[in-house]
């Protein structure tokens, strides 16, 4: 019970903490602006190149799903950064609370927030850029969006764990939020990348999520995408475990060297 309480406390407080610097109206504005603007930018680039509706829809769907990373990658990595800036990191490390629910819980509210971002983006994709959801398998799409948010939160925790040791996690947050646009098949297929870097794409859970979302929007069932989702789940769980390992390792180093916030 205690672990469950820690999990929920960690989830709620980590999420609420962002409202110390972000008021709710700004939060909503950002959600709408970010969801639309990135998608619109690449849609216009696609329009400039070909004007082919299939290309436009491909780009719109990819970017809609990628918006999840603003919540579950950027925000989750920045939890460590804010802990350092706000001086709360020593308190977090001093607590006797079990580390696993504490570590894992901090990303959980961002998963649901990320799903909301994707829903808003899909609405933009349908109303402004003509993506047809008429054939979509809604159950399969909902499961895909949830699993993508969940596994990408694992990825956020991994990079968050890594950036624990560095002074400015926001640098990592920026790099790993944007780099997904290149590697995950968001705007063009992974096969368009140089062959030597293609394996990197499959280290990101988003790659599987984007592919699965495109299939479900075309009518694929949960069974059709089960292999993709299975692979995504494995990559996500490995990320969480690695992230937890890094978090504990750097916590140990920080305690040993006495440089908790300075590292």
């Amino acid at each position: 019970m205690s672990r469950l309480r820690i999990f929920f406390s960690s989830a709620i407080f980590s999420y609420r903490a962002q409202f110390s610097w972000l008021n709710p109206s700004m939060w909503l504005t950002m959600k709408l602006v970010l969801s639309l603007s990135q998608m619109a930018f690449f849609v216009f680039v696609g329009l400039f190149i070909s004007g082919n509706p299939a290309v436009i829809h491909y780009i719109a769907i990819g970017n809609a799903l990628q918006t999840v990373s603003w919540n579950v990658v950027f925000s989750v990595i920045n939890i460590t950064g804010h802990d350092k800036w706000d001086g709360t990191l020593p308190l977090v490390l001093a607590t006797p609370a079990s580390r696993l629910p504490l570590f894992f819980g901090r990303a959980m509210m961002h998963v649901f927030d990320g799903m909301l971002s994707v829903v808003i983006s899909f609405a933009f994709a349908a109303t402004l850029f003509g993506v047809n959801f008429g054939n979509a398998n809604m159950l399969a799409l909902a499961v895909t969006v949830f699993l993508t948010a969940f596994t990408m939160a694992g990825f956020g925790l991994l990079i968050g764990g890594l950036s624990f040791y560095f002074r400015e996690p926001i640098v990592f947050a920026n790099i790993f939020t944007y780099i997904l646009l290149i590697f995950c098949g968001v705007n063009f297929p992974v096969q368009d990348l140089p062959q030597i870097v293609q394996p990197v794409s499959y280290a990101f859970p988003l790659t599987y999520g984007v592919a699965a979302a495109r299939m479900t929007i075309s009518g694929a069932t949960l069974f059709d995408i089960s292999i993709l989702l299975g692979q995504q789940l494995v990559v996500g769980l490995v990320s969480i475990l690695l992230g937890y390992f890094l978090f504990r390792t750097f916590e140990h180093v920080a305690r040993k060297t006495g440089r908790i916030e300075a590292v």
Partner: protein
Amino acid sequence: MPQMLRVVYSAFRMAMLHWIADPQWVIPNIIAPFIFTTVALTLFKNSTGPFGLYAVLGGGMMGMWGNTLYSSGFAIEFEKWQGTLEEVMATPSKLLHVIAGRSVSNALFGLTNMIAVLLIAGFGFRVPLGIANLPMFSVALVLTLLSVSALGLIFASAFVLSRSAQTLTNGLEIPLYIISGSMFPIALLPFWIHPAAYILGPTWGVDAIRLATSQDYATDSFWKGVNANVAMVLDLAVMIVITLIYAAVAVVLFKMVEKRARTTGTLVEA
């Protein structure tokens, strides 16, 4: 040296020293334009047409935009975090001049993105990178940099009073890339966005830069049917007028903001 220029230069030098002391901050400022350009180059690679020109020059332009905008917002936030904003406000030097020096420095640093983009375009994507009119290209680039800096001043004045400066910065970045037509012709945008594009100085700057890079672009320029050299001069003239208006607006805004901050006493809490 006149006092105003001395303050601007000192702020410029200080900002440059900050960047050199902590160069990792260049990453958040230029990562979006760099990644966006790489994605655009990948999308363009199987297409024929002037796409490389748009991607490379647009990417460089976006770097200046991104860095200026990000730094305008973050400069104030940083002073608040460090507890030095009160001191900056209390100095006899005008806040506008301090921020102006920083703004030019930030736009200049944004050009590092252009170098990164040129390298990846030249070596990674084999985009031809010849410049048809180097003197005009240089003039257009410097004037565009000043125009972006002047716009940065307007943003910075608003950011002094906002707790959400950094958030606003993140939110404004991509819309500005879209509206200024950095990576694609403005004609593709809905017509109601066009006026917003035309009041942005850098929109004209990027048109001049494209004209200076390739004479073939003259048919796609804002001044279709006009000789490329004349079109460039017209672009630059419009941009200079807009930049002067930005500067005048910034002067008024900074006066208002300074007065309000001093009257209400909510500078740091804002």
